[in-house]
């Protein structure tokens, strides 16, 4: 049976169903439904809910729960995620599995509570110190929110790494029908956990600290072998580009749905375009750009930011195609016609008049300034 639920609720209930027994959070819009739901449901499900004193407190409680071997999660939104970065670096340094959700808003600074995608760099490059990555999943439907929570806990346990789920406030707040299927859980032994069995096995110690160069380097090399394996095996992408399409539009998360409308609109006037929707933002599905149909002449990247993922696309494309960009920020969500107009402009066709609610300037990048195509 399908249930109508918000993205935030799907993330919460899926976490409980996936065996999350320790949730730590701190309030911030637009993810407040998650700690609200968890505060009511975790204890009856046999788990722990703590509203921490701050985001910093919450991420370090996650460190503790993960070290003890629990499936654990914290959620926040952009400025709160900024505060968690130190903790994420430590979790990576200590190889601790956990799931971290960012229901992003717009920034920088306190920014606003409307949807944004300007945390792409923070999520994929890491805002903390040191050499590390975290797998990052970007759902675009409420169903995908549900499914990716199960997957994220499995990936976290399998590779002993924090996993991030990055969505925006639009998806967190919207409702869609969800098939609430409980996916089978990957059971991974955690012989490294500090769970109080000292008498029955050698002492376990979990730390990111090492004062000896060679030792720390060996730990980092080992971790990057794991990253290499993740990059080889765990890439996820949806690709609807087919032979005959002249433009490939790249977008992720809820805004990719708006691109789908734009593609439909363009089709009516004989312009064929397809969507490339990365589901993993790290590892990035760069290989998809190496095998596009020969009909493709242009790549357009659409984001609710000033242009962040576009850099990964340029790296992947490596000069093979011109890469264009269209973005809105500050919580303004682009309409299908804006994306369609950008495609028309790229192809040298007349654009259509926009009867927009907000007649502000668009945030199209100065492509020359940013290194161009």
């Amino acid at each position, binding site marked *: 049976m399908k249930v*109508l639920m918000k993205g935030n609720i799907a993330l919460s209930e899926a976490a409980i169903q996936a065996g999350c027994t320790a949730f730590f959070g701190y309030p911030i819009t637009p993810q407040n439904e998650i700690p609200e739901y968890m505060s009511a449901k975790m204890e009856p499900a046999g788990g722990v809910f703590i509203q921490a004193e701050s985001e910093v407190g919450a991420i370090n409680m996650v460190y503790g729960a993960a070290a003890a071997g629990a499936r654990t999660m914290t959620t926040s939104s952009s400025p709160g995620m900024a505060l968690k970065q130190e903790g994420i670096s430590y979790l990576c340094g200590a190889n601790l599995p956990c799931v971290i959700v960012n229901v992003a808003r717009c920034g920088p600074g306190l920014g606003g*509570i409307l949807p944004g995608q300007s945390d792409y760099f923070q999520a994929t490059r890491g805002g903390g110190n040191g050499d590390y990555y975290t797998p990052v999943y970007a759902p675009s439907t409420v169903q995908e929110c549900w499914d990716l929570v199960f997957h994220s806990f499995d990936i976290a346990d399998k590779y002993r790494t924090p996993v991030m789920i990055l969505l925006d406030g639009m998806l967190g707040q*919207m*409702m869609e029908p969800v098939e609430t299927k409980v996916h089978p859980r990957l059971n991974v032994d955690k012989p490294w956990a500090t769970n109080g069995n000292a008498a029955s096995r050698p002492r376990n110690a979990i730390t990111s600290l090492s004062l000896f160069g060679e030792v720390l380097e060996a730990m980092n090399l080992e971790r990057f072998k794991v990253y290499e394996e993740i990059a080889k095996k765990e890439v996820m992408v949806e690709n609807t580009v087919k032979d005959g399409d002249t433009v490939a539009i790249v977008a992720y998360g809820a805004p990719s749905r708006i691109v*789908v*409308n734009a593609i439909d609109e363009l089709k009516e006037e004989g312009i064929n375009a397809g969507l490339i929707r990365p589901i993993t933002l790290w590892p990035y599905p760069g290989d998809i750009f190496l095998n596009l149909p020969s009909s493709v002449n242009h790549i357009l990247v659409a984001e609710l930011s000033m242009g962040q993922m576009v850099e990964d696309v340029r790296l992947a494309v490596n000069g093979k195609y011109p890469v264009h960009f269209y973005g809105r920020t500050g919580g303004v969500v682009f309409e299908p016609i804006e994306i369609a107009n950008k495609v028309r402009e790229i192809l040298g066709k007349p654009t259509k008049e926009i009867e927009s609610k907000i007649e502000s300037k668009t945030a199209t990048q100065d492509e020359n300034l940013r290194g161009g195509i």
Partner: protein
Amino acid sequence: MTSRMIFSGFGGQGVLVLGEIVATIAMNKGKKVTWMPSYGPEMRGGTANCSVIVSDKVIGSPIVQADIDILCAMNGASVDKFLPKVKPGGLVLVNSSIATKKIQRNDVDVVEIDATNIAGKVGSLRVANMVMLAGFLKKTDLFTLDDITDVLKQRFKGARSQDLIPLNIKAIEYGMEE
């Protein structure tokens, strides 16, 4: 077929719940649906609205900004804001107890519903949103009174809240009679 709807009014009038009920009914009937609130620094007495899309095909953007098929407006500000965005031939349901201005468009189908006053007669102003559903029953074939009853039974499961079902149904029936 795709229906793009806006439910709009004062915060506290129950427009978000009303949209959710319509979306749930459509989901129960096997349709694809999305429900998207205008989330922001909202408050009781401020404005609130939600976009609902019901379709046979996969839904892209959940946001309804233009090309509205059905506008359900529970106050005057909502009429002012969304009436220009209703498609020609679209349906406009107006809570005429509060939105008293004449609708300045003759290319849309307008149904005036004295929702707040009817709700008062039924016994609670809080069911004014349900009275608006009468407009859907009169003018669309999206759902029936039985479909609404089913969803209310899902929503009001507890022993105490069960008593609210007859009140809500009565509100819709009064709306049908007007």
